């Protein structure tokens, strides 16, 4: 049972390091949405006000576009995304037994391009990859985040958890110190939030653009003056997976709007 395993793992972590507080209880988890002002919430809630929808529209067009040497579109294999992609984004990153590692949605899209379309991979954080990710993510809006329970997934989650709880950088901070222990506080003027990845890719007002969870993670890592892994790095994929596991059962909001 996953819950028993979770408690055991949590205890192991407490024993290994010095976190002041353990994980956030399930009942106290909050989306970044809950930390936002009413006006920013309203931007997310209204599809004609949510700029992330512009990327969803682009993604819809890309879904139907033929690409690569195979001259196939996503739709040629998967048909109507509202049926075939429903729930998919809510269960990524996922462990790929074939590859022996966790794969995020962006990487999954690119492996489909390589294998089925015989097309070049889309660059990480490129407009097209964000658009397809947002379009696929949109098909799971309102669904609960789910994470598989198998040995490969569990191992990858553990690896992500180790990254989350590791003190690092010149400022010697771990993710957990802010986002588990201090989410009710304010860093300068801004709420710290719990770091629940409920709306990715998000339209971040700061960016004036859509961006991936990895882009957001890299912002925080830059802040604590640590070595920032490249986009797509396995360490970041596993951190993403851990964060999704931490947010399991919470509702996917893609495309989210955040300050």
């Amino acid at each position: 049972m996953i819950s028993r395993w979770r408690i055991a793992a949590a205890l192991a972590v407490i024993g290994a390091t010095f976190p002041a507080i353990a994980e956030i209880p399930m009942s106290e988890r909050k989306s970044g949405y809950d930390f936002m002002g009413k006006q920013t919430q309203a931007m997310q809630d209204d599809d004609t006000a949510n700029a992330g929808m512009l990327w969803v529209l682009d993604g819809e067009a890309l879904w139907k576009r033929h690409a690569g040497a195979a001259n196939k579109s996503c739709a040629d294999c998967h048909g109507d995304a509202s049926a075939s992609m429903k729930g998919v984004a809510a269960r990524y990153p996922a462990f790929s037994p074939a590859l022996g590692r966790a794969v995020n949605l962006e990487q999954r899209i690119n492996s489909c391009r390589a294998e089925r379309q015989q097309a070049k991979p889309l660059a990480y954080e490129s407009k097209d990859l964000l658009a397809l990710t947002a379009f696929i993510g949109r098909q799971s809006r309102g669904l609960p985040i789910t994470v598989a329970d198998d040995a490969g997934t569990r191992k990858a989650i553990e690896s992500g958890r180790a990254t989350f709880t590791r003190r690092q950088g010149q400022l010697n901070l771990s993710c957990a110190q802010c986002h588990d222990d201090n989410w009710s506080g304010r860093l300068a003027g801004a709420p710290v939030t719990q770091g629940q990845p409920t709306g990715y890719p998000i339209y971040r007002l700061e960016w004036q653009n859509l961006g991936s969870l990895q882009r957001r993670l890299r912002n925080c890592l830059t802040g604590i003056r640590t070595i920032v892994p490249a986009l797509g790095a396995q360490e970041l994929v596993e951190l993403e997976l851990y964060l999704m596991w931490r947010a399991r059962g919470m509702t996917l909001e893609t495309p989210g709007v955040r300050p």
Partner: protein
Amino acid sequence: MAALVFGTVSARAELKSYKVIGDAIPQSLTGAAGDPLKGRAIVANRQVGLCLLCHSGPFPEERFQGTLAPDLAGAGTRWSPGQLRLRMVDSTRINPATIMPPYYRVDDLTRVAPAFAGKPVLNAEQIEDVVAYLSTLKDVKK
């Protein structure tokens, strides 16, 4: 590996040595008293001292101060200069789980970004300036 060790050693060599007595570093890192006015500027500067990201303090001109750590008002009443110095230099010596970054330690850190590797957050003079400034904060009211 050898290069890593060498880098750490050479960086550490730049730091002034100090002696911890109890929960304090009684002696100035530079051997001189700091400048409280410069210290105030360091504390208020969000790129240099970073303090107001987590702490609030008696800075009426600064909006959006942090709430993650104790208010700096009254710090000079609560702590001696030596106690403040150790809390700046390496707060983990007092509380291993603290969120307070070590401002004057370069070893035993993990994966420091290249631009900051081997450098303390503040140098010895800056630490002394901040200690001098915090020591003036006798009034708990802002």
